[in-house]
């Protein structure tokens, strides 16, 4: 199982994402933003960070990187794709996922351990979890407030496409406490908090995040 991890200029969490992929039992393949070659990977992760310095809007310039052209093409054919934090922003800017991520409602950059509730376990990234499971993973973002119009929100709710919600107080002003969503097909997932920073208790607040990376292996083995 080959999982590509993309590095854009300004990406921070590619190393941790690759480490999490290996901990989940897959091979991590480095992908470079300027290279459209996906190196025969089975799935791709867009990790967190500040690609292109968050210039213009978060993820707005990364969307047009050569690697993204190939990723969008493959994702539309069903390739599993996970965007974490800045990766989630890139997925929204690419229109692979609906809505947009805007400035946290209180303007503060967040960096905390956050409990989220897993609601959809039918995606290739969440199948290791059980529905209704609460997990603890880090949340660190400046622009993590998920916004969309009422019709889109009703669609996401109605189709069960909200994969995870924040538990407790709304940390960033996201509509309906949305922490992560998926596309209609269920292969593309965007998540604001960081499972790749919570794969063992030595370096993270829990090992709960590992489930995203074991899920992808299960999805491919099936």
């Amino acid at each position, binding site marked *: 199982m080959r999982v590509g991890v993309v590095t854009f200029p300004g990406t921070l969490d590619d190393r941790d994402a690759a480490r999490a992929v290996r901990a989940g039992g897959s091979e991590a393949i480095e992908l470079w933003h300027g290279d459209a070659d996906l190196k025969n990977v089975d799935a791709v992760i867009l990790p967190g960070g500040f690609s292109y310095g968050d210039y*213009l*809007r978060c993820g*707005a310039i990364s969307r*047009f990187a050569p690697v993204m052209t190939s990723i969008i093409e493959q994702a539309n054919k069903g390739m599993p794709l996970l965007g974490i934090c800045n990766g989630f922003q890139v997925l*929204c*800017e690419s229109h692979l996922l*609906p*809505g*947009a991520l*805007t*400035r*946290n*409602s*209180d*303007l503060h950059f967040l960096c905390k351990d956050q409990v989220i509730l897993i609601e959809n376990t039918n995606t290739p990234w969440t199948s290791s979890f059980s529905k209704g499971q609460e997990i603890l993973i880090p949340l660190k973002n400046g622009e993590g*407030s998920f*916004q*969309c*119009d009422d019709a889109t929100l009703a669609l996401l709710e109605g189709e069960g496409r909200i994969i995870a919600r924040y538990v407790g107080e709304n940390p960033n*002003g996201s509509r309906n406490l949305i922490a992560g969503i998926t596309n209609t097909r269920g292969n593309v997932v965007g998540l604001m908090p960081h499972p790749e920073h919570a794969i063992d208790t030595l370096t993270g607040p829990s090992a709960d995040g590992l489930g995203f990376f074991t899920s992808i292996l299960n999805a491919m083995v099936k």
Partner: protein
Amino acid sequence: MAKIVVDVMLKPEILDPQGNAVASALPRLGFTFATSVRQGKRFEIEVAGEPTPAQLAEVEKAAEVLLSNPVIENYVVRVEK
């Protein structure tokens, strides 16, 4: 040389925490005129000569695809004399 200006603003229904922060800072400095502040972006694009209708159409397209995110923002394109 002419200047094409693209103003990008968050849609009215989208929360603007930066604008709110500015609005709450104004009274602290004694400026009491504002009931609301919204913050946006302004792009100044220079082109050689008078902009042609074709160029303006291209700028409109660029504003739609790159300069704004139509999910959360509106834009206005105009030529500055």
